[in-house]
């Protein structure tokens, strides 16, 4: 069934509500509600505007925050203490934000942090919106039922100048997680398991809607973790239908609507769900009970296995993946057949737009309380924003991390992508809560194993990849 009354997916509904123009061939101008900007992918865009004598169409809907380059150690407000090669971009963002008059959270502002944590925290991200940022992890905002795309710098310039994005509609993909997650299994395990199932290109050309009982049961923080990694599965956007939990999270945030406007907004937000009978181009269903705590072993996020598995052999794969697995194992310094739990690590990194929110810090602290980081290990926790950091201090989590032997850092992207002083040395092996285990991602020659915050905390205690359930304090409920 087609036509205006045909059942629609959530993606269809947000798309239709933002269609400013559609050409006969389907090329559309999608109106953008919120444009988030950081210092790495925006300087050339602002420079392009300047060269063409153009202005920012909606500075009131444009939000800038430095995150990729910023050091996470004290004293960073002093530009002289920022590595020289990072200063130009930070200075450019500062200049551009002021000159073009966009909202701006510099490092001196407690609200500064990773752009994808700041947006929801300040209430910039709301259900049913279109959100873009020159960053592939913009998918994070889909947790609110917002259509959130990562874009390139030319597109950043296009949105700055026109407040629209040239798009062709993607196809609809449904990822349903049925039932309940087992103890010790988190949103990170869910999203990595999905990527392991579909592959890093499984979502290419699609917008994914995550649904099912296990997704509904997740907190907003957990939903953000799931959507954050939609791009690692190839999908430019991931979505979760908004519900009471979403509204509760948004209510009272600085840029969320108030009073009668709040009521009107919620009334519309309640309609933002896929209709029964909506058409899906691809459906993936996974039983929540089948998901285990997982880690990655290779150099692609699809290289994921349950923690009780062993390092695979290249001959277990097919086609181009045989060579890729061989290359990955060589890079990672791993031998097929080694139990994952026998892999010793050098470093632990807890943070990033994937897992730098308060709930992530609580989960890690829960494992670390009364325990110590294994001798000789480097461990750092980097809150996703200044406000997350302040809250963690108030809740006593910072003390738990410090007592355990973790470095307690200032907010930023930190070691997720190593554009700042936080980097791995060649061969250094890291248990990381970030989103990419690509070659060199955390530093040239660095070896990354992706996992949940609780799993990373467990690895910090034992000094090797560890099944968090072995350190868990709450007894597993009987079946």
């Amino acid at each position, binding site marked *: 069934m087609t036509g205006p009354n045909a059942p629609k997916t959530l993606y269809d509904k947000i798309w239709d509500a933002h269609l400013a*123009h559609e050409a006969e*061939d389907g090329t559309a101008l999608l109106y953008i509600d919120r444009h988030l900007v950081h210092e790495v992918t925006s300087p050339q865009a602002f*420079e392009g505007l300047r060269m063409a004598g153009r202005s920012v169409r909606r500075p009131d809907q444009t939000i800038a925050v430095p995150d990729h380059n910023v050091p996470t150690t004290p004293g960073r407000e002093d530009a002289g203490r920022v590595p020289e090669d990072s200063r130009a971009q930070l200075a450019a963002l500062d200049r551009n934000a002021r000159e073009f008059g966009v909202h701006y959270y510099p490092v001196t502002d407690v609200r500064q942090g990773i752009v994808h944590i700041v947006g929801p925290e300040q209430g910039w991200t709301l259900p049913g919106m279109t959100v873009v940022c020159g960053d592939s992890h*913009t998918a994070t905002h889909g947790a609110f039922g917002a259509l959130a795309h990562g874009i390139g710098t*030319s597109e950043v310039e296009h949105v700055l100048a026109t407040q629209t994005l040239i798009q062709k509609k993607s196809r609809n993909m449904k990822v349903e997680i049925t039932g309940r997650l087992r103890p010790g299994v988190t949103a990170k395990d869910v999203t990595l398991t999905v990527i392991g199932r579909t592959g890093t290109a499984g979502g290419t050309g699609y917008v994914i809607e995550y649904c099912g009982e296990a997704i509904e049961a997740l907190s907003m923080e957990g939903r953000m973790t799931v959507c954050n990694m939609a791009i690692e599965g*190839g999908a430019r956007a991931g979505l979760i239908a908004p519900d009471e939990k979403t509204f509760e999270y948004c209510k009272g945030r600085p840029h969320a609507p108030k009073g009668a*406007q709040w009521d*009107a907004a919620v009334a519309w937000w309640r309609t933002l769900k896929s209709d029964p009978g909506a058409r899906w181009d691809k459906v993936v269903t996974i039983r929540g009970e089948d998901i285990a705590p997982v880690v990655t072993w290779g150099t692609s996020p699809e290289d994921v296995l349950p923690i009780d598995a062993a390092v695979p052999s290249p001959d277990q794969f097919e086609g181009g993946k045989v060579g890729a697995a061989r290359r990955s194992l060589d890079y990672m310094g791993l031998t097929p057949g080694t139990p994952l739990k026998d892999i010793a690590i050098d470093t632990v990194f807890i943070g990033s737009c994937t897992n730098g929110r308060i709930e992530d810090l609580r989960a890690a602290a829960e494992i670390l309380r009364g325990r110590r980081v294994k001798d000789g290990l480097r461990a750092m926790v980097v809150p996703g924003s200044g406000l997350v950091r302040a809250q963690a201090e108030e809740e006593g989590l910072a003390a738990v991390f410090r007592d355990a032997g973790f470095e307690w850092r200032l907010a930023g992207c930190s070691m997720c992508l190593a554009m700042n002083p936080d980097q791995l040395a060649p061969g250094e092996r890291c248990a990381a809560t970030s989103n990419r285990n690509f070659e060199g991602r955390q530093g*040239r020659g660095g070896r990354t194993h992706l996992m949940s915050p609780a799993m990373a905390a467990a690895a910090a205690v034992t000094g090797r990849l560890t099944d968090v359930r072995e350190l868990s304090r709450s007894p597993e409920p009987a079946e």
Partner: protein
Amino acid sequence: MTPFTTLAGIAAPLPLVNVDTDMIIPKQYLKTIERTGLGRGLFDEMRYREDGAENPDFVLNRPAYRKAEILVAGDNFGCGSSREHAPWALLDFGIRCVIAPSFADIFYNNCFKNGILPIALPQDQVDLLMDDAERGANATLTVDLEAQTIQGPDGGTIPFEIDPWRRHCLLNGLDDIGLTLEKADRIDAFEKEAAQARPWV
């Protein structure tokens, strides 16, 4: 943007799947505020050794491929980050066409904004072109965007598909922003309607 019409050039083989944007241009090169000059960092970790010397085994360092203008690669090319530094680095090195069985969405899109033509072909055809590319400087490919064909060194021709609008923009080197601003009245109208319908935004 420089128009893309036809390109006859040396094709370099890069038979890897999931070539990610961190591999194409690693983070230390992302600190620039310019679009140019990134060719030096293209495929840095494969192209240079730890001491900074060239790795003579890497394809773009081999004499036959130092002037390559076409890259033939594996599945899911350009996955990962949204960094447009990846196409900027390819372009700055001199590569204007990438042929692979599939591309990641954001990278694919970024190519068109920079006059680079990404061509997706079935695996068996990419395999044939990969074989051609292995023959080095003796094997140039001719890509004709108008005709939507790739001609191999032995005269065989492979047709390819491309979105007509993107083809049109690439052939004419059109600037997206200029084209969109021609529709400014539509955007104005939409903005007014949206302010009524969703005043809380």
